[in-house]
């Protein structure tokens, strides 16, 4: 029995091994802020373009969707409210992965990602609260109730504001990075609470109707516009996040050069 592989297979397995071996260096290359600026500069316009096309299609589908037999035309608010709520939670999840990058891998762009994502996440959370409230007035007869879902999302909004304050309180971003990463990871506890609040407690807010174990409980006429809108807003989030990260890298360069200039003028 031959144990050695033919030359071609041997070389392909070596290539596979070498791919595995070189992947950390590729990861490291992406960690270089200059390389990140080059790469993101090329991707950014395409991402914005795609986001706008998908959003335009989503909004067209949303505004031409049939009325719901219970909600009437207010179902159109759901096509933006639900994606805003998803993105509010997704942004905190993205920040949590970035926070791990700060604390575990000390990735130079991880802290940049957290700081850049926070204001965008805050706006999407604010919009999920406001659009939900506007929908609630005609459907529930009230603008607001302190039920578990609404309260936990409101807490998420306050956490975003706290994080924004923390990342901007200290002039040296390196000093606030660890504290911000810890806050983000501790705050991640709130994400499953938001998701399962409608199952764990009696809430006025209805239970999940899309992300369910037995599949979406929604007809295609409503599901399609909802998912297209969600895809559009998600693309918009990532495009904006990229812009904010690029700006944060530039801000840190300006700070470093300003310090150099101050030192040079003092010498």
């Amino acid at each position, binding site marked *: 029995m031959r144990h050695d592989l033919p030359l071609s297979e041997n070389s392909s397995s070596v290539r596979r091994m070498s791919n595995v071996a070189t992947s950390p260096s590729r990861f490291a290359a992406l960690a270089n802020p200059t390389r990140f600026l080059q790469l993101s500069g090329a991707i950014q316009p395409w991402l914005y373009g795609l986001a706008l096309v998908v959003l335009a299609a989503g909004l067209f589908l949303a505004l031409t969707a049939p*009325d719901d037999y219970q909600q009437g035309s207010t179902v159109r608010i759901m096509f*933006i409210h639900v994606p805003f709520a998803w993105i509010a939670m997704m942004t905190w999840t993205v920040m949590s992965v970035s926070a791990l990058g700060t604390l575990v891998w000390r990735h130079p762009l991880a802290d940049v990602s957290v700081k850049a994502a926070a204001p965008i996440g805050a706006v999407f959370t604010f919009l999920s609260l406001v659009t939900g409230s*506007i929908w609630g007035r*005609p459907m529930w007869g009230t603008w607001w109730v302190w039920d578990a879902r609404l309260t936990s999302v409101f807490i998420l909004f306050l956490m975003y504001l706290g994080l924004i304050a923390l990342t901007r309180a200290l002039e040296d971003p390196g000093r606030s990075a660890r504290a911000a990463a810890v806050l983000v990871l501790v705050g991640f506890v709130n994400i499953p609470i938001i998701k399962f609040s409608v199952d764990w407690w009696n809430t006025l807010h209805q239970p999940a109707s899309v992300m369910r174990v037995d599949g979406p409980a929604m007809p295609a006429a409503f599901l399609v516009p909802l998912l297209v809108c969600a895809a559009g807003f998600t693309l918009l989030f990532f495009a904006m996040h990229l812009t*904010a990260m690029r700006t944060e890298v*530039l801000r840190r360069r*300006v700070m470093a050069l300003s310090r150099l*200039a101050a030192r040079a003028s003092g010498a």
Partner: protein
Amino acid sequence: MQNEYFAFISAAYGVSALSLLGLALWLFLDARGRQRELKALEARGIRRRSDASARGTAA
């Protein structure tokens, strides 16, 4: 579309559009401001050591 809900629907879409446009404008102005600051510093001859060494290597 039922007219009785028109105000609620337009308010929800209007607030969303204004907030997202405001966010986009803030991101754009922030990016432009930092780019201008960086250019102004570089115009004064202040460069990062890595940029200076890269230029030195290229030359």
